[in-house]
């Protein structure tokens, strides 16, 4: 029974793996150490390929992307941290290679802009709807009107 479960689990696992999108990483680039290789893959996904600019170097088949993947792996095997490996590439190609732009004064508008617009728009909407509500408030009923309402709302058998 236990063996059956194990077989099922293995089958499911391999199915999951084969369903993953194919990356551009070739076997000869990969590091022997699976932990380092996993880190390299994660870093590669964050770095933009400068040849085909809307792909990460993990996705791109461009020769330059391959070179950069190898550079990232070299940095990791030399004991650099993820941040240092990314920085190595950024120093050469600039912030442009970061698919996720860093939060710094030059990008504040980018990061905070949507929230500022949302807040500003929300406040404007609130003020506008308040004003409208006040204007829509009807003046109190007169004596005659009240009597009429009373007469109309009375059930006539």
């Amino acid at each position, binding site marked *: 029974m236990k063996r059956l479960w194990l077989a099922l689990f293995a089958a499911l696992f391999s199915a999951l793996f084969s369903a993953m999108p194919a990356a551009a990483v070739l076997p000869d680039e990969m590091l022997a150490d699976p932990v380092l290789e996993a880190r390299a893959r994660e870093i590669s996904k964050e770095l933009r390929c*400068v*040849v085909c*600019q809307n792909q990460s170097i993990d996705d791109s088949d461009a*020769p*330059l992307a391959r*070179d*950069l993947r190898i*550079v990232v792996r070299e940095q990791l095997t030399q004991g650099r941290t993820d941040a240092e490996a990314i920085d190595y590439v950024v*120093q*050469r*190609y*600039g912030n*442009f290679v970061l698919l996720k732009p860093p939060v710094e004064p030059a990008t504040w508008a980018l990061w905070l802009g949507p929230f500022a617009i949302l807040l500003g728009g929300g406040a404007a909407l609130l003020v506008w709807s308040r004003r409208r509500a006040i204007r829509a408030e009807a003046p109190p009923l007169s004596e005659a009107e009240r009597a009429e309402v009373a007469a109309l709302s009375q059930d006539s058998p």
Partner: protein
Amino acid sequence: MKRFIFVVPVIAFMVLIGFFGVGLTKDPKALPSQLIDRPLPRFALPGIEAVAGGGPGFASAVLKGEPALLNVFASWCAACPQEHPVLTRISGEGFAVYGIAWKDKPQDARDWIARLGNPYKAIAADEAGRTAIDLGVTGVPETFIIDKSGRVRFKQVGPISPEIWEAIIKPLMTRLRAEA
């Protein structure tokens, strides 16, 4: 005032269109170089010709004392033949032009030079492409303008046309020559 409210989205839309319109005129391939006003990264590369008639390659230290052009090219590059006559002209005008054959087999680079002529003072082979990464090269051709102190002052992405040479690079080279 009430009318104005309805015009606001239209104006906002126009501004957005204008913004995108300007964006369309910009070349997304031309990345700003990280090297401007910084020293040229150090490298020492072999020549393209391990065999007879070949230059010995050069190191980054050569690019000092005199302003120079460092041109990254490849025999497989489509725009390079178009740029080649301009480089020939530049070296004919007495400016130092150095070449790096990027990701190119030395034999191919050599054949290419033999066919088109050699405008370079020296040619180095960067077969692995590592020096190109240090330079932040994104494609060929690219040209770096190096000043007397060995700092990068300008980067041209794509071929140098006669117009670009006359209007931008030549005046810059003349200015760099005059610098102390």
